[in-house]
Every structure is written in structure tokens, then in C-alpha cells.
């Protein structure tokens, strides 16, 4: 019998298994955190301003003839009705600031009607607890297409000033 105690038993070599390198966990630096926070606040502010904006649909139909002014009792939208070339119509929007903060008001008009609409007041400061009436005037030029409906949207942005 062999003396097992004194014998050194060689272990079979274990095959090396390639272990995937541990991914280094990305840690935000303080400056990154500050930038992220500022951007987050900025986007929340923009989101709020856009969401809070007064939105109006604006339309005008060009009627044949002269001196035709359509009547539209609706106040929910800036519908100027039917207008003939050379005619104009005015719609008013009352803007109320019920907060204790001043608001910067900016009006944006888009669409085919935007070239025809004139705004009485734009890019102004609205004082706290005050009201302002804004007039939207449409004038139909000589080159407007008869029977065409010019439409678009008007956005009224209110940006709080701290």
C-alpha cells in the first residue's frame, strides 16, 4: 500500500474562465448635478409656460365684393368671420393677471392668417392684479384670394417675473 499522507496530489489545472470586466459605475460630479438640476428647472418652467398659454384659433374667410364684414359672436376663438378685400375686423382679448407677480406677456401668431393679423400690444409687462385688453385687427389686403380661408393660431404666453 502506498503511503498517501506523504504524497502530494497534484490538482488538475482549472481552465481559466474569462470574467467580464466590472463596469465602472458612472458617478455624477457636482458640476454635472448642478447642470442637470438647472436644466430640469428650466424645462419645467418652459413646460408650465407652454401649458399655461392662452391658445386661440384664428380664421378669416375672404368674401367676394366690397365692404362685407361678417359678424361672429364667439369669443372663444379669434374668428373674424367673412371679410371682403379692404375690410377689417377687430377682436379683443382681455388678459387678467390675478397673481402677485408681474407677468411678461408675449404673443405668437402662426399660420396663414399671421401676416394679416395686427396685434395692438406685444412683449409687455403686466402688473400684478391688473388687466389688459389686447386688440387683434385683421385687414384684408388687395392680394388676398377670394373664397379662401386664412387660418392659424395665436398663443398668448405669460412668463412670471420674479
Amino acid at each position, binding site marked *: 500500500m502506498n503511503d498517501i499522507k506523504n504524497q502530494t496530489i497534484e490538482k488538475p489545472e482549472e481552465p481559466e474562465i474569462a470574467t467580464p470586466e466590472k463596469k465602472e459605475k458612472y458617478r455624477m460630479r457636482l458640476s454635472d448635478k448642478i447642470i442637470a438640476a438647472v436644466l430640469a428647472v428650466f424645462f419645467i418652467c418652459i413646460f408650465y409656460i407652454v401649458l399655461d398659454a392662452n391658445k386661440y384659433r384664428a380664421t378669416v374667410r375672404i368674401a367676394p365684393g366690397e365692404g362685407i364684414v361678417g359678424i361672429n359672436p364667439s369669443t372663444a376663438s379669434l374668428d373674424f368671420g367673412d371679410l371682403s378685400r*379692404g375690410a377689417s375686423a377687430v377682436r379683443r382679448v382681455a388678459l387678467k393677471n390675478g397673481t402677485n407677480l408681474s407677468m411678461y406677456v408675449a404673443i405668437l401668431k402662426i399660420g396663414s392668417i399671421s401676416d394679416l393679423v395686427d396685434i395692438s400690444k406685444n412683449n409687455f409687462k403686466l402688473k400684478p392684479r391688473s388687466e389688459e385688453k389686447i386688440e387683434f385687427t385683421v385687414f384684408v*389686403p*388687395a392680394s388676398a384670394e377670394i373664397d379662401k380661408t386664412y387660418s392659424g393660431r395665436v398663443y398668448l404666453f405669460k412668463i412670471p417675473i420674479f
Partner: protein
Amino acid sequence: MATNKKYLSWFIYFAGLAILIFALPKLLSLGLRTPSPMAAITSGSMWPVLKQGDLIFIQGIGAKDLKIGDVVVYRNQINNTFTIHRIAKLEKEFITTKGDANFQEDPPVRYEDIVGRALTLSNKPLRLPYLGSITMLASGLK
């Protein structure tokens, strides 16, 4: 060596850009045969062909080449400004123009007051939207 090459390429890029910016008006002036090759639209009198804030190109033109319907630029003697309107009538000594969006014709214009004709593309004046506003803003800042 690689860094020098990089700097050289940046230098060439900026030099090219500067030449382009400063030489463009001169080149346009030569190509379009007019001392005022560009104009910004400041009113809606030519709506919808030309809109406020557009930038248009002007080409020099001889009096005999003018025809009714051309959009021309002329020096307004009353207030010493430029006006861009369409030719409505051609007479022996005067031209009558009218803005497309206007209801009335302009006062007669002398042939020598015509600066040029709007450069057209497919029979429509070539316009660069909003670029006119930028040039107006830039000239206001000077």
C-alpha cells in the same frame, strides 16, 4: 506635426469663411450688376409674394428690359428710401408701380430711379425668409 496640421486646417477654414462673408456682397454686386444686390422687405405691401422680413436679391436692369409685372426696386425721392413694388404701367418717361397688397398705385417713378429688378426663380421673386429681419437687426446694431 499633427497639431500643426490641425491648426493650419482651422486657419484655412476661418480665412475662407471671412473671405466669403466680406467678399459675398462684392461678388453679388459684380454678378448682379448693381451696387445694391440685396434688400430686406420691411412692409407687407407685396404680400403674399414677398413677406415682411424676407431678403431678396436685386439684379441691375436696363430701362428697355423692364416690362409690366416685374417686381422692381426704386429709390423713393420723397423720403429717400427704397421701395419694392410691381410695375403696373410703363410710359415714355415714367413708370407706375403698385404693391400687390395695396389698393392704390404709387406716384410715377422716373426710369433713372430704378435700382434693379428682383431676381426671380421660376417666375417668382427669389426670397430668403427671415434673413431680412436679421440684416435689419444687424444694421440697427451698428
